[in-house]
């Protein structure tokens, strides 16, 4: 055998028994690693189904009625709640949020007399102007103006409670008060044509048994990925080291 061939090796073609055992350990570890990480994500992908939140059904039912003018206060309240649930998500993109706020404003003001709506618009304008000033203030001045803004929004929430049924002090009432703009967009305006798409985007999620099962408080898939996989990685590393050292000792190899 030539010298060149004598020392040929690869991970799949080790040179001796020790190498073959080493290869088996490495390939087993790799297989566990790949299956645990990517196999589970693939399983998640295969089992998931686009699942809407209940608010999407409410929206789909009430928005066409609102557009056609055949809605009533009860249905408007349902519609408003579905819009607020999306407007309150912190993940909404600025363009989508503008559309949502326009829709919230339109629906809200349609539920009250014009004179009340005008009063709220004025308060909203004042609050917006004050909020714009907040960025440049510090310390006491900031706290003072910030409290004034809070007071205005609290008053708005109080007024709205009587018309929308959304309780003052609830998170929904805060989101509603902050979503109102001083100008009422026209409902059939082109800007609302993409509202159903926006609602569907933010209210539909990929769910399955793996995401809906709760384990140690977590959604199971979240626990698996954020906690268990890391435990597994540490465990694999410890197992590998122990195994390798045990074999080296058994074979009398000194590194």
């Amino acid at each position, binding site marked *: 055998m030539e010298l060149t061939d004598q020392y040929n090796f690869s991970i799949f073609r080790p040179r001796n028994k020790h190498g073959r055992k080493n290869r088996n350990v490495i390939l087993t570890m790799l297989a566990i690693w790949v299956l645990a990480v990517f196999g589970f994500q693939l399983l998640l992908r295969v089992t998931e189904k686009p699942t809407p939140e209940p608010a999407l059904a409410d929206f789909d039912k009430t928005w066409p009625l609102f557009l056609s003018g055949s809605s009533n206060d009860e249905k408007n309240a349902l519609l408003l709640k579905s819009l607020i649930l999306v407007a309150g998500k*912190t993940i909404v993109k600025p363009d989508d949020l503008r559309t949502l706020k326009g829709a919230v404003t339109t629906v809200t003001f349609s539920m009250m007399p014009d004179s009340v709506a005008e009063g709220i618009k004025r308060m909203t304008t004042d609050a917006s102007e004050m909020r714009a000033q907040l960025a440049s203030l510090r310390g006491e001045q900031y706290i003072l103006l910030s409290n004034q803004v809070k007071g205005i929004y609290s008053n708005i929430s109080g007024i709205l409670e009587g018309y929308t049924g959304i309780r003052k002090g609830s998170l929904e009432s805060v989101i509603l008060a902050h979503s109102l703009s001083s100008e009422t967009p026209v409902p059939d305006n082109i800007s609302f044509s993409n509202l159903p798409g926006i609602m569907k985007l933010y209210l539909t999620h990929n769910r399955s048994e793996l995401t809906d099962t709760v384990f140690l408080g977590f*959604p199971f898939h979240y626990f698996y990925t954020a906690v268990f996989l890391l435990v597994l990685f540490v465990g694999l590393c410890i197992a590998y080291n122990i195994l390798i050292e045990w074999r080296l000792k058994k074979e009398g190899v000194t590194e």
Partner: protein
Amino acid sequence: MKKIFLSIILFAVAVSAINAESLTQLEGSFKTGPAIILIGTLLTFVLVGVFFKARDPADYYAAGRKISRVGSGMAIASNWMSAASVLGMAGMMYGFGYNGLAYVVGWTGGYVLLLILMAAQIRRYGKYTAPDFIGDRYYSRDLRIVSAIFTILISFAYCVGQFGGIGLMFKWILGLNYTWAVIIGSSVVLMYTLISGMIGATKNMQIQYVIIVSSFLLPVFLMAFRFDYFWLVPQLGYGAAVTDIVQGIPAPNIVSGAPLVNAYGHDFAIVPSPEFAMPWDPSTGTTFFQWVAICFSLMVGTAGLPHVIQRFYVVPKVADARWSVVWGLFFICLVYWTAPAYAAFGKILSANPEVGALAKDAIVVYTAQLGNINSLVVGLLAAGAVSAAFSTVSGLLVAGASAFSHDLYVRVINPSSTPKSQLTVARIGTIIMALAVTIVALLKLGLIAQLVSVAFSMAACTIFPLFLLGIWWSGSNRAGAKAGLFTGILITTISITYFIAGLSGRRLPGQEFISYWLNIWYFAWIGAPLAIIVNIVVSLFTAPTPPEIKKFLAEQVHN
């Protein structure tokens, strides 16, 4: 004695003054407590750096191989846990939900690869730097030069995100604008690296790890306790918060008769937000493919990062190299198990519209602030984040400077240089690199975690295939290595070109296709496998590896 007494009194006065502060704004003002802690922490680093100063190139590059397993594990963890881990990762989960977990898994899973495929073998091969290994294994001066250049580029790309993170924290603490914050932060980290070198850095890394982990964990314990989650192990306790986010928490949220509120007095409440936890939620604009591609790129990149690989040269024995990976990974996981908790609590605490939009990369600090955590503890958290960025940057600058002085200057430009001139060149290289990184960091090209992931993809496409095949296949030869490296560089160049074109508003042919499938944050998903395949194919059809290299591999590395 009097001095100590005076110091204690001054500290107590400062603490009481700081405790009297209440949260008015998340940003914009000078924060006394955090500033004192940050300055104290930095001074400690500099003193340790001076005390353990590098005396010769061996110390500078490899800490004189005097580091224990646990110590090396701490250094690996500290070196590894950058601003991307401490700040960026929670920001990704806060902004992109489940897809942020691809970073958590990617940045830890890569260590399994590193351990079973590389750690001990690299230590047995016995070279100081990645270009050293590549030049020697592939008996090629050209490959040494190119890999040295790429080592510098990878370190550079990695540093950009770190300098951004340092800037964010300096901005938050000092109340400065981002530009000045980056400039000041960069100057401090440069000074420290120049003073200490790697032996100081390694000692500092151990101290930095303790600061990072304690400062990162403490606020989560406090928040879990305050908001009535299982606080004894908040790394599990926040799971209920994730489920609460999915289902929504109504307001007012009352526990034991008292309402749970954030620092602004807003209810601890949130509308149902399944998008935070559900996989590749459409509203986050992410897909299953992207999750897998990011995770894979980060894992493979981990096993190809020169400054990570370089850590295995500093341990005394081969077994130490293996166990230092285990310790390193465990220490890293302590932080990575905790980071999602910040995203979860941050999500709820910032749900009130009065809080307004928050910068994702600073969400860790904002969460602690909104959670009404004592400002000293928040200050310690910010100092920990700065420590994380510092420890990584110092390691990266050393790796970059090593590539410049050791692999380019000594091996190529001036082989007869003295140790003193080598050290001078290393320091000049460090300064040039730090200046260039500062300029790019000021451009704010992306989120910290995303910026750092570019370095991972680059390493995965270029360095990783050379190490993997160089160690595990004697048939991989110079021609194969060159072809594989060329393929990796080509994929990298295409991805970066399209990214820059996108930033400048230009549209190149297939812009959308490339921007999705060869995205700059995860192009290694295809780049790394392609580079490996090309390396194998070309090696099979060209002159074989010299017998002495095969013999060395068989007898020294694998025997």
